[in-house]
């Protein structure tokens, strides 16, 4: 194991599969000589050439559609959305086509396509660059949706995404490209639909995915220091397929749950998690399931306003305290 950044690990996952399978090609805006606006594909055009690292026009619908056409031919395109916010321009291709071609063909056709890019906010890019789209894409049968947060996971889940014969929505924690972590060497493929216990605990379960997992880990440390509370943190990793069992088992142990998401409260993943807990672990609950979400505003630009719009450590710790019936701070 070596320590690597999220960015390096992500690139390593793609490179691993490009070396394994020559039908894997990268497509997107400025991913060639420029190396990607987030430098995810830096240097890859030198190594693999412009046939496998394809710079596209600024035409999200066009190149996503082209990737679908390539995938139906058995190629494995990995499409970069400069940010997921631009995928609205390609949403018909993704939702109405990539997700449905297999069903519409009565199971004849596969679309082994990965669409990847930074999701969520936190880097002062304002509302049109700041959406968390896991609930939107997670809503549609035919898509797989994952949201890795550690460097090891982003590599292993990218390997799995490329090998998957279905369209995979790969939501990267854009604000964490520079963060470091231990990454396994070689093939560390990580199965979709398996949540990860990021921190073990016994008093309350904090459930998140993507960047908010790190927020929950910090909140768990605070709860331990200030309140003597042992919080378990679960990283969902995969939104569709979804691992219900890991959540239910944890809540059966802790009897209390807080779900955290960067996106807006209404119709979000946190609501889905709360619904699953009440369906499957109702009798184990000692308190209502708490939800912590982003503020109901388009994401603002100024740093202080942006921070005010996202879930904070204090919101998470206080939600946990409410669930534990101890005084908020």
């Amino acid at each position, binding site marked *: 194991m070596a320590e690597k950044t999220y960015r390096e690990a992500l690139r390593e996952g793609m490179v691993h599969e490009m070396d394994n399978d020559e039908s894997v090609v990268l497509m997107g805006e400025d991913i060639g000589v420029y190396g990607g606006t987030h430098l995810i594909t830096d240097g890859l055009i030198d190594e693999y050439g412009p046939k496998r690292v394809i710079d596209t026009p600024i035409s999200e619908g066009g190149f996503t559609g082209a990737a679908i056409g390539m995938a139906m031919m058995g190629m494995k395109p990995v499409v970069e959305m400069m940010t997921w916010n631009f995928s609205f321009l390609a949403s*018909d291709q993704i939702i109405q*086509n990539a997700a449905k071609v297999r069903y519409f063909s009565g199971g004849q056709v596969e679309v082994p396509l990965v669409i990847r890019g930074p999701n969520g906010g936190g880097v002062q890019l304002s509302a049109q660059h700041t959406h968390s789209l896991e609930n939107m894409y997670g809503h549609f049968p035919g898509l797989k949706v994952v949201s890795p947060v550690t460097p090891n996971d982003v590599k292993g889940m990218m390997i799995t995404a490329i090998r998957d014969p279905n369209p995979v929505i790969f939501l990267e924690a854009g604000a964490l490209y520079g963060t470091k972590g231990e990454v396994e060497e070689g093939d560390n493929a990580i199965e979709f639909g398996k949540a990860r216990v990021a921190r073990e605990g016994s008093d309350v379960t904090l459930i998140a995915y993507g960047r908010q997992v790190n927020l929950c880990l910090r909140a768990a440390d605070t709860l331990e220091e200030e309140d003597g509370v042992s919080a378990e943190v679960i990283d969902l990793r995969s939104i569709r397929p979804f691992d219900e069992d890991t959540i239910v088992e944890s809540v059966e142990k802790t009897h209390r749950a807080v779900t955290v998401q960067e996106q807006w409260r209404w119709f979000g993943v946190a609501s889905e998690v709360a619904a699953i807990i009440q369906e499957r672990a109702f009798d184990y609950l000692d308190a209502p399931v708490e939800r912590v979400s982003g503020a109901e505003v388009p994401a603002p630009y100024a740093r202080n306003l942006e921070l005010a719009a996202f879930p904070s450590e204090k919101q998470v710790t206080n939600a946990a305290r409410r669930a534990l019936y101890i005084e908020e701070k």
Partner: protein
Amino acid sequence: MAIRETSARHEALGLDEDDLRRMHYYMLLARRVDERSWILNRQGKAAFVISCQGQEGAQVGAAYNMRPGHDYLYPYYRDSGMTLLLGQTPRDQFLSLLGKREDPNSGGRQMPGHYSSRELNIVTASAPVGVQFPQAAGTALAFKMRGEDGVVLACGGEASTSGGDWHEAMNFAGIHDLPVVFLIENNVYAISTPTKLEVAGSIAKRAEGYGFPGHEVDGNDVLAVYEVAREAFERARAGEGPTLIEAKTYRMTAHSSDDDDRRYRERQEIEEWRQKDPIVRFEKYLMEHDLLDEERKEEVDTEIKAEVAEASEYAENAPFADPEDVLLGVYAEG
């Protein structure tokens, strides 16, 4: 002599009598399947019909250049003349129309007219128009990257050229010199909206802006469409890049079985276009060249009608999918 000149026409194109008879057969077959579909709709048996009538010449003329199972077809929902020519059968069409289990397109999962066949390289179409073009460009890019000589025929009505996807695909195909033929069947209406309210300038001429040839052709003249498409296919196979063809034709029926076209067009206009019916015109050509007479025409039509009746009856009696099947085919096992 006019006859001698036209005689030279199909011969100059390298088409023999058998080719001409096949073209005629598939145009008429598509028409009769379509007519039968409307009857099934009026009988309450088919929930939805979308029609090819009037466009069979453009469809058969263009697709006659394809090698089934080798080249790729991205049809739009009116292109039954193409899918029949490539090897789908009237049974297949009626099974799809009635949403039966054996429907080879989708097993009852997708609307009629949205053809799909892995074996014949027919890609299921999107109901929102124009979305197929970028996918077709991607398939053409895959052919090119693999060094294969496949050609992609990507089709749509003129309405599908108004949205961004078509332009993005034209641009992408032009940038990479892709082996794709864009066939626009200009049938004058986007549901109710006439071309003067939906098309600025000329569709065919837009190709020039993307750096490849665009041709306008009489879409009701099957041989003219064949000729211009043949050149486009040859160009694509030779690695010279895409071609745009705008086939001027006419939608002789309402947009679909859910539409009442009396609200937006005169009966007289339809009558005028019926005089230019591509099937009638082609039959006239064949008769002028002693390749068809009234007796033979009746024979062919009788034969086709019997085939259509048998296919319709088969599909009407075919079982629906089991309700449990609804969940099958969403994800591929990985």
